């Protein structure tokens, strides 16, 4: 059983195993389920993710009307071929957006690690899929690697926006995705940890300030940038760049930052973007409350 990233990397390196394999073994041991059952369960989650992306890139609209349709715009833009950044990264962004647009529309998604951050991991997975051509089994493994890093964050810090801000949700999701991309691309367990550290460092301090308390603005676009962050950090780690602050210490810093965040910035819809004039106006419009009646 691994308790932190250092133990996870040490275990994988000494046993010459992939992080996904360790996660599968631990899951089977802890739950008493067979390896086949554990793999089949994750395969079902992968199917849910695929369906959400497919639905999202065709275009959905949330009940509030705040979000929907951006994944479509981005896919059309990619098709035109005149983009500046890169096809894989934009594809990841559009698929992350697609998933979160479906989530905002009360569609079916798989929380990774939460619903509000559910776009990042599948978004990056389905984008690198066209580049690396993984087998179905490797795609399932991707989710176990992401899960292993999320498992450490959840147990040592938090994956809840109400407890730790958006850094705990999209921040964790991005770190998990970066680590999983590295493993799928053939990187070492140590490089996975570096990718996670680099990603999370760039998400520290991110507050949870949803407009009208809805998981829409800015959540959908935070998933977009979370996916982009993960892709770049994975490339950096694969290039051999390391984080000066070890991954476990970054996770710990994230936890402590979360604890010192005021409640207005932890999923209460009271501060940050939610408290901007436009944020308040949207809230009043959606819930039919006149602005002067608001607390």
């Amino acid at each position: 059983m691994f308790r932190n990233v250092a133990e996870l990397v040490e275990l994988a390196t000494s046993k010459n195993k992939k992080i996904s394999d360790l996660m599968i073994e631990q899951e089977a041991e802890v739950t008493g389920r067979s390896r086949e059952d554990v793999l089949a369960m994750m395969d079902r989650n992968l199917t849910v993710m695929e369906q959400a992306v497919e639905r999202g890139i065709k275009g959905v609209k949330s009940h509030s009307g705040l979000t929907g349709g951006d994944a479509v715009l981005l896919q059309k833009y990619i098709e035109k071929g005149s983009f500046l950044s890169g096809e894989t990264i934009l594809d990841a962004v559009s698929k992350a957006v697609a998933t979160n647009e479906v989530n905002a529309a009360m569609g079916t998604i798989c929380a990774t690690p939460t619903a509000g951050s559910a776009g990042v991991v599948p978004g990056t997975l389905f984008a690198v899929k066209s580049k690396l051509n993984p087998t179905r089994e490797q795609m399932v493994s991707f989710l176990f690697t992401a899960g292993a890093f999320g498992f450490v964050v959840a147990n040592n810090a938090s994956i809840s926006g109400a407890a730790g801000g958006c850094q705990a949700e999209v921040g964790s999701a991005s770190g998990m995705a970066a680590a999983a991309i590295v493993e799928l691309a053939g990187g070492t367990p140590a490089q996975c940890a570096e990718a996670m550290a680099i990603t999370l460092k760039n998400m520290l301090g991110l507050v949870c300030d949803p407009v009208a308390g809805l998981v829409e603005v800015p959540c959908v676009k935070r998933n977009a940038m979370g996916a982009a962050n993960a892709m770049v950090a994975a490339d950096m780690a694969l290039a051999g760049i390391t984080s000066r602050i070890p991954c476990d210490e970054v996770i710990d810093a994230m936890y402590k930052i979360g604890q010192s965040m005021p409640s207005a910035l932890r999923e209460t819809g009271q501060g940050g973007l939610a408290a901007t004039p436009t944020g308040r106006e949207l809230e009043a419009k959606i819930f039919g409350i006149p602005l002067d009646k608001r607390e």
Partner: protein
Amino acid sequence: MKYKSVFDIIGPVMIGPSSSHTAGAARIGRVARSLFGREPKWATISFYGSFAKTYKGHGTDVALIGGLLDFDTFDERIIEAIEIAKKSGMKIMFIEEEAITDHPNTARVLIGDDQGELELVGISIGGGKIEIIELNGFELKLSGHHPAILVVHNDRHGAIAAVTNILAQEKINIGHMEVSRKEKGKMAMMTIEVDHNIGDEILKKLEQLPNVLQVTKIVD
């Protein structure tokens, strides 16, 4: 460790938009339903902290009622849960509490019918995972991820040993156990999380023990 399974992280499969405020709320409602053992005729739900501020936007209200109707996190009927509940005659009230609780996502669920009532406090700790921290005035810790039984008993010597003895005879391993009481010598409760499902026959044996008043099961 709060999170034990990779599927706490990659999962649950759920209806959006929030794992803590939608899926977690559905699970809190479903535990209450399971403990109550039938569909309640009325429900008074108090929301605290982030739940109180954002429950409308997150569908926390519909999800919790969905749970009371025994819907799972991925059941699409959650979206219409309040209408479904009202159609079957359930009286529903939501209260936005101002009090500060230890956890920002806290819900107090009071349900009942003419046969009885049940009060439960649940917290949603992230990613859809919940903990039940209070039941009918008793403090407790219940992850909802393992089969568990709740035993209401008289606070007398030997009552706990008698219960664990029967579980031992039936080769059922206890993973987590807590005991609490309201007052010395009065009513007390055991919360027992076990590795395997406990069959009805064993429950009957437990109920027949002296000093045991009620045994309730939560199936995994």
